């Protein structure tokens, strides 16, 4: 089946839905394509809050500086300026849409402290801020009557005359493949956490957006910048929000010592995430951990703060570890959490590929540079979601409708037929995914070194060869998740390779990228972004872009 729209948005998290809403407001015929129902999107897992300089005592310059410093000076400062200037308006808009933000005694929005910020500027709803924003935005999408292709899985982007003009997607309930044509496509398909084991991310975060865009020639930028969150639950790896430390929780080692005093004497537990995660890893490596973890201690906050402001993580620690954080500290460790890099866009969300836009975690504007500050990701999604929705709708107005695409639809049908007809080899996609993700955590994780990265590159090439032969363990049409899982693993392999290659190229330590063989930051050579562009089966093309510096020159970074 072939259907036409003005703008197609891939992904229905905060970035995708915000983009769709803005494009609809601009008069475009918009459709959202999403492999899960919008409410299931991983934006709902963002717990702590969203940053903005709203208070009179605060300024966007201060927010921007904290962001730039947090990024280890790799963020593009024009983009950071845009985001921090527009943050208050965008958050207030969500308040007008109905988000039940926490209030101060005067009835105005109230804040909590967060990592890497020079003052408390994080606005929040308990510890379910992402969920509160997501549900409200979904309800706005319902109100606006935006068409949602729900549980449709994108398999390829449709290119026509060098421009992106839609996509091919698998309707999971029927197993039918469709061509959805448009004048512009916005990718807001979220992160790639499944590439790492363990990760805080949901099972659906499989890098679809990065890989689909990469395959049609959109460059991926800063892919080496993978964030490890300092507090993920021992065992399961679930996220324990930074808001816990924002509310005053301590990090303790086996000597019952607040070890952050040695790493960030001023900000202590509220240093930037890369700094805190490395500190924990050092404590654990030097024998002051507890079974490979450190402790997150909330007891002194009292039951009132814990139960009222952090009920979700309280429930999670109880459900998955049997620990009541009111009474006992919780074992946590650094765990893969967020990809700072992504599809390279300008400050409006446009990629170098005409007709193709991106926003949210999948995009790299870049506002997060080498390390994202907590509560800046929700902000990123709603500011650049809105911006990309507007420019994509404008672009669609002056662009003729696509007429082609049947050839792509047929070749995609053929590709899936081949996948389904492969003979069983005894190897499974799940097994290979686990091998890949364990390898990424080991060799391309918190600490990296050339030999390890070369080994990872070699291994991932081998994984790719094996992937080409693995059979899909379900031959049916209806809701064939074995088929979509196989496609997802293909996306993960593409993402993994770009991360390894970029990590090899950057011979310095900056932000989340720590090279044990190059432990210092090197501004002389590396104040620039690494971009990889795919040209068919050949090695990806490497290029660089200078970091945009408007007013903050790189300084020594300490907390």
């Amino acid at each position, binding site marked *: 089946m072939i259907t036409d729209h003005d703008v197609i948005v891939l992904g229905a998290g905060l970035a995708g839905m915000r983009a769709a809403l803005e494009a609809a407001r601009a008069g475009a015929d918009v459709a959202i394509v999403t492999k*899960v*129902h919008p*409410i*299931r999107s*991983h934006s*709902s*897992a963002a717990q702590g809050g969203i940053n903005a300089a709203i208070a009179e005592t605060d300024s966007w310059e201060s927010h921007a500086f904290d962001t730039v410093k947090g990024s280890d000076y790799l963020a593009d400062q024009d983009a950071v300026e845009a985001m921090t200037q527009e943050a208050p*308006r965008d958050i*207030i808009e969500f*308040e*007008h*849409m*109905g988000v*039940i*933000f*926490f*209030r*101060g*005694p*005067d*009835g*105005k*929005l*109230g804040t909590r402290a967060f990592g890497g910020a020079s003052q408390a500027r994080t606005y929040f*709803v*308990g510890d*379910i801020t992402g*969920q*509160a924003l997501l*549900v409200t935005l979904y*309800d*706005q999408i*319902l109100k606006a009557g935006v068409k949602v292709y729900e549980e449709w899985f994108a398999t390829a982007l449709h290119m026509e005359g060098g421009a992106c003009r839609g996509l091919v997607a698998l309707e999971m*309930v029927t197993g039918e493949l469709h061509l959805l044509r448009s004048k512009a496509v916005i990718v807001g398909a979220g992160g790639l956490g499944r590439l790492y084991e363990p990760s805080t991310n*949901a*099972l*659906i975060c499989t890098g679809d957006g990065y890989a689909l865009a990469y395959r049609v020639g959109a460059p991926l930028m800063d892919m080496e910048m993978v964030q490890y969150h300092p507090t993920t639950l021992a065992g*399961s790896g*679930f996220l324990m929000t930074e808001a816990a430390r924002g509310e005053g929780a301590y990090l303790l080692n086996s000597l019952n010592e607040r070890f952050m005093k040695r790493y960030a004497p001023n900000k202590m537990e509220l240093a930037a995430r890369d700094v805190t995660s490395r500190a924990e890893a050092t404590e654990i490596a030097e024998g002051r951990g507890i079974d490979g973890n450190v402790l997150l201690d909330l007891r002194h906050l009292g039951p009132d703060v814990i139960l*009222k402001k952090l009920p*979700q993580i309280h*429930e*999670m620690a109880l*459900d*998955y570890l*049997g620990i009541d954080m009111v009474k006992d500290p919780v074992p946590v460790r650094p765990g893969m959490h967020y990809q700072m890099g992504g599809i390279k866009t300008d400050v409006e969300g446009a990629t170098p590929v005409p007709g193709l836009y991106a926003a949210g975690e999948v995009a790299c504007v870049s506002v997060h540079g080498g390390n994202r500050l907590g509560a800046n990701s929700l902000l990123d999604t709603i500011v650049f979601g809105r911006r990309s929705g507007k420019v994509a709708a404008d672009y669609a107005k002056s662009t003729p409708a696509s007429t082609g695409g049947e050839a792509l639809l047929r070749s995609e049908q053929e590709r899936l037929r081949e996948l389904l007809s492969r003979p069983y080899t005894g190897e*499974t996609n*799940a*097994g290979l995914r686990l091998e890949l993700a364990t390898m990424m955590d080991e060799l391309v994780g918190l600490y990296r070194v050339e030999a390890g990265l070369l080994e990872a590159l070699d291994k991932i090439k081998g994984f790719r060869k094996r992937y080409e032969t693995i059979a*899909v*363990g*379900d031959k*049916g*049409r*209806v*809701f*064939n*998740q*074995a088929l979509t*899982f196989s496609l997802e693993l293909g996306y993960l392999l593409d993402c993994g390779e770009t991360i390894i290659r970029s990590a090899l190229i950057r011979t310095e330590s900056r932000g989340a990228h720590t090279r044990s063989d190059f432990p210092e930051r090197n501004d002389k050579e590396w104040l620039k972004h690494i971009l990889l562009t795919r040209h068919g089966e050949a090695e990806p093309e490497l290029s660089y872009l200078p970091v945009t510096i408007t007013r903050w020159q790189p300084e020594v970074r300490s907390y």
Partner: protein
Amino acid sequence: MQFTIEVGRFNPEGTYPENAVPGAPFPAPWDRSPARRYQTFMVDLPEHAVVLDALIAIREYQDQSLAVRCACRSAICGSCAMWINGHANLACKSRLSAFTQDGKTRVESPPSMPIIRDLVCDMKPFWDKHLAVKPWLQNKQPVPPPNEEYRVSNASMEELIQEVSCISCSACLMDCESFAVNPDFLGPQALAQAFRYAGDPRDAETKERLAEYSKPGGIWDCTHCYECVTQCPKGVAPLEQILKLRRMAVDAGFTNNAGTRHADAFAESVRDSGRLNELTLMPKSVGFFNIVEQIKTLPSAFNLIRAGKLPPLIHKAIPGINRIKTIFERVGGRFK
């Protein structure tokens, strides 16, 4: 640790694994659901593992054709609500050890919802109901300027966090007794969200909402079975929100409906005689002059007579009725 999982399989294309045997869903008032087959798996997992761990292990290493929705694994995304031993629960929040009965755990798509495949049900009834309550803020005018928030108390926002905590998993609707017999009932989740907006001090259309929610299929169709409160994995307690809406609706004057009349008939009967007058309950609920509806209840009346359950024709007050009246006077409100 070894766990035994019995999984309800359904495939509209008709292909099933060889060891999946025909069976019926757990005994329940629902009979709309097509027949399934049940397949038994053994999985080796840590003692504290949850049902979803088992299902993922089965899908990844035993049978890739098992269809199950899941994403976050930590009770945030709402994907994995299903029937576990005959009641709706999140698979990611249900410990296998706590849900092992007679040596096994039985999981299946809830028979109260249409089924797509295996553990994947069709959520359309759920989302249709959600949409039907107009789940968006109708902004109170004037809307503050773009750089200013509505000034409201933190208490009024905290009052709503219970409903905002809803993750739309549908566990409440899956086990709703009223929905089981009346597909048009808006159901617990939608009505909890209805309160979330009707109770928002920034909403301008509280009255219009209450009028709408008071119609048949709305707040008065809940039978207080408490299944939604029991099954909700996030403590939303939809029934409590429905009761709040009822109070708001009656206070706003939306009393011309069978639900309010029924509640009033109860209260009046207790006030006047100290106990329930079942004889007048039905006519008062449908309306004394609503002859058509009253005639419709006649078959039930005949059944009662046949079973010897007809209430006494002369309804007597209990001894000490004056003290009951005093209670009503002290409580105040509409029945003093």
